[in-house]
C-alpha cells in the first residue's frame, strides 16, 4: 500500500518526500484501571537531513513518540491507531526481526543516560564492532578499523587506545560521544535522540550539540531531537513540535515558534524560561501542572491552565490548523480564521 503522502516542494522546485512520516499515532497502555493514552493523534513528517525538535514537559508523550517509531514501546504499551512510514515503507506493523533490522541500520538511537545505553561488561570497541558487523558484511578487522574512525570522528582523543577501554573509563561527555558513534555505525538515515544532553554539564552539552549538528550535516542524517530544553532546540533544530498531554499543540519553523509563539501553552512556556534578553522581576507562570494520564481534561487538554480558555475549549478538542508557516491546535486561531473567512 503506497502512502498517500503529501509531497513538499523544495526550494529548487523539486518535490521532496518525507523520510519519516507519522500519521495519527496513538499509543495506549491498557491497565486494570482503564486505558491510558500516552500519545493521542500525533502526526508529523521529517524531511531527509532535517532536524526536528520535539519539546514538552515531563509526561507530554515526547519520549513515547520516539520509542514508538523505533519499535521500543514496552508492553503493555502498544500502538493503537495510526501508522509510521519510513521512506514510503510502513514500519509500525513489522514483525520483531524486521524492525530489529531497521533499528540500528536505518534509524539510530541516542538516549539520555549514556551509562545505561552501553554494556558495562564489554569494551567500547567490542560494542562498536558488534554493531557494525550486525548491520554490514564487514570483516571483523575492517569493522575495528571503522570503529576507530568513528571514535575519532566523534572527537575522542587517542581512539586506537580508547577503543579497548570499558565504558566506566569514560567521562559522561565522552560516553555520550561513544553512544553517538554507536548510533552512526551503520550510517542511518534518521537518528532519534532522546534527551541526549540532559545528563551533561552545560559546557559538555554545548560540545555534544555542536558535534551532533556537524555529524548530521556531514552525513545528511535526519534527527528527531526529543528534549525539554528550549535552548537546545533553538541551537539545533530546523523545525520544532511542542507537545502537551500527548498531543502536538504547535509545530513550525523553530524561529517562528520561539520568537512568536502562538499557542497559549508555548507562549507561557517561553515566558517561564529565565532568559538573558529579558530583565523581569517575575517570570510568566502557567499555574497548575501537566495533567496525569488518568485525568486528561475534556476538550483542549490545556484549558484548565489556559488564561484565554473559552467555552468551546472545554468541550471540543482542537485540531492542528495552519497559521502562517506553523500549525497550531487552538480554537483561538480557528475562530480567527473563520471570522476572516466570513
Amino acid at each position, binding site marked *: 500500500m503506497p502512502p498517500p503522502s503529501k509531497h513538499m516542494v523544495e526550494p529548487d522546485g523539486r518535490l521532496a518526500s518525507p523520510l519519516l512520516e507519522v500519521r495519527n499515532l496513538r499509543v495506549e497502555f491498557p491497565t486494570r484501571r482503564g486505558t491510558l493514552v500516552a500519545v493521542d493523534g500525533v502526526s508529523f513528517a521529517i524531511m531527509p537531513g532535517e532536524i526536528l525538535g520535539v519539546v514538552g*514537559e*515531563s509526561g507530554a508523550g515526547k519520549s513515547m513518540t520516539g520509542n514508538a517509531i523505533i519499535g521500543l514501546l514496552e508492553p503493555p504499551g502498544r500502538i493503537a491507531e495510526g501508522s509510521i512510514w519510513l521512506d514510503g515503507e510502513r514500519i509500525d506493523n513489522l514483525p520483531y526481526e524486521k524492525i530489529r533490522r531497521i533499528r540500528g541500520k536505518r534509524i539510530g538511537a541516542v538516549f539520555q543516560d549514556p551509562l545505561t545505553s552501553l554494556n558495562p561488561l564489554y569494551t567500547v570497541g567490542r560494542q562498536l564492532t558488534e554493531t557494525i558487523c550486525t548491520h554490514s558484511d564487514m570483516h571483523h578487522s575492517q569493522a575495528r578499523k571503522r570503529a576507530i574512525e568513528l571514535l575519532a570522528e566523534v572527537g575522542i582523543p587517542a581512539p586506537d587506545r580508547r577503543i579497548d577501554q570499558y565504558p566506566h573509563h569514560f*567521562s559522561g*561527555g*565522552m560516553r555520550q560521544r561513544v553512544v553517538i558513534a554507536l548510533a552512526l555505525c551503520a550510517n542511518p538515515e534518521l537518528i532519534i535522540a532522546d534527551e541526549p544532553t540532559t545528563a551533561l*554539564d*552545560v*559546557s*559538555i*552539552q*554545548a*560540545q555534544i*550539540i*555542536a558535534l551532533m549538528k556537524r555529524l548530521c550535516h556531514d552525513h545528511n542524517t535526519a534527527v528527531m531531537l526529543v528534549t*525539554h*530544553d*528550549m*535552548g*537546545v532546540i*533553538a*541551537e539545533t533544530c530546523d523545525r520544532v513540535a511542542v507537545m502537551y498531554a500527548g498531543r502536538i499543540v504547535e509545530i513550525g519553523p*523553530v*524561529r517562528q515558534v*520561539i*520568537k512568536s509563539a502562538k499557542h497559549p501553552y508555548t507562549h*507561557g*512556556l517561553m*515566558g*517561564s*524560561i*529565565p*532568559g*538573558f*534578553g529579558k530583565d*523581569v*522581576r*517575575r*517570570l*510568566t*507562570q*502557567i*499555574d497548575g*501542572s*501537566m495533567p496525569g494520564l488518568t485525568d486528561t481534561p475534556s476538550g483542549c487538554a490545556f484549558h484548565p491552565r489556559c488564561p484565554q480558555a473559552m467555552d468551546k475549549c472545554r468541550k471540543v478538542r482542537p485540531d492542528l490548523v495552519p497559521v502562517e508557516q506553523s500549525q497550531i491546535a487552538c480554537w483561538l486561531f480557528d475562530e480567527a480564521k473563520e471570522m476572516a473567512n466570513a
Partner: protein
Amino acid sequence: MPELTDKSPALQVTKVARYFDVSPPFLNRLLEGAPRQILKAVDDVSFAIKKGETFSLVGESGCGKSTMARVVVGLYKPTSGAVAFDGVDMASLRTQAEALPLKRRMQMIFQDPFASLNPRWRVSNIIAEPIRNFHMIEQPADIQKRVDELLACVGMSARDGKKFPHEFSGGQRQRISIARALASQPEFLVCDEPTSALDVSVQAQILNLMKDLQDEFNLTYLFISHDLAVVRHMANNIGVMYLGRLVEVAAARTLFTRPYHPYTRMLLESIPDLEMTGTKTAPLAGEIANPIHPPSGCYFHPRCGFANERCRRDLPISKPTKDGALVACHGVEEGRIPEFREVKTPAPA
C-alpha cells in the same frame, strides 16, 4: 564585595576548606604502598551575603557547590576556615543548646523533592516537624493552625496537609519543602538546586514563589544552581566555582555584562542561545579535571586559551578588579585577557 551598602552581612564565609579522605582502605595502603588521597571538595572559599539578598554559587557538577551548601548549614564541619552567621562563628557553638537557636534561623531546601520528604509521613506532620523540634508552639491545635498558614503561604490548601508526599507532583512537593523550611521562621535559606528536578513552567512558579517569600519575610538566600539563566534571575551577587575554588565573585549585572575569568566566559558562551542571534563561538574543548589530582597552577589552565607559563606554575589568588568583581586569574591581573565582547564577536578586519 561589590558596592558596599549599610546592610550588614548575614553570612560571612572566610577561607573555608573541606577535604575528604578518599584513600584506599588501610590494608591496601599497607600492602600496595598506595598513598593517602585527599579530595579537596572546597578550598579557600570566602564570600559574604548581606541581609535580604541572594548570593548564588554556580559551576558544573563536581565543583563543590553542594559541599559548600552543606558546610554553611553545618551538615559538614569545615576542615579549615570559618562560617559566621550573624556575626557568630558556627564552630564556637559547642553544645546543642547553644547551636539550636542559631540553627532555627537557617534552613535548607534540597534538590530532589522526591527524596527529601518522608514518604510515610503526612504533609502536615512533615511541615510541623521543625515547629516541634524547636519547641516553637506547644499546643497541637495551634501547631495545626500554623501548618495551615504555611501551606497557604506556599500556595497550597489546608486540605493538602492530610495527604502523603506521593500524592503530589514534583512542583507541589518542592512547595512542601519550602513550607517546611519556613516553619521555623528562618532568616536564611540555603537552596541547593531547588528547581533543577522540575519542568520549566513549574520552575517558574517556584522561582516566583521564592522571590515573593523573600520580599515578605526579608529572607536571605544562598542559592545554588548550575543554570546560569536561573541564577541571573534570582541573584544579587554570584560566585563562580571551578574544582572547589571560587574563580570569580561579582554582582549579577557585572558578571553577565563583563565577565572576567575565562571560565565564566566559557560558561556564558555555552548557554544555548534562545535569542538566536547567531553570535556563538565554537564551544570550548576539554572537561573538568579530576579533583583528586587537580592540574598544577591555575586549575583551569588546561582548558584556558590564555594560559601561559605562570598559569601552569602558580595558583592565582582572588584580586579585585576596577568594577568591584573578585577574580582569581593571572591573565586578568596582568591585563592580557581582552574585553569580553571582543572575544565573542571578533571585529571585522
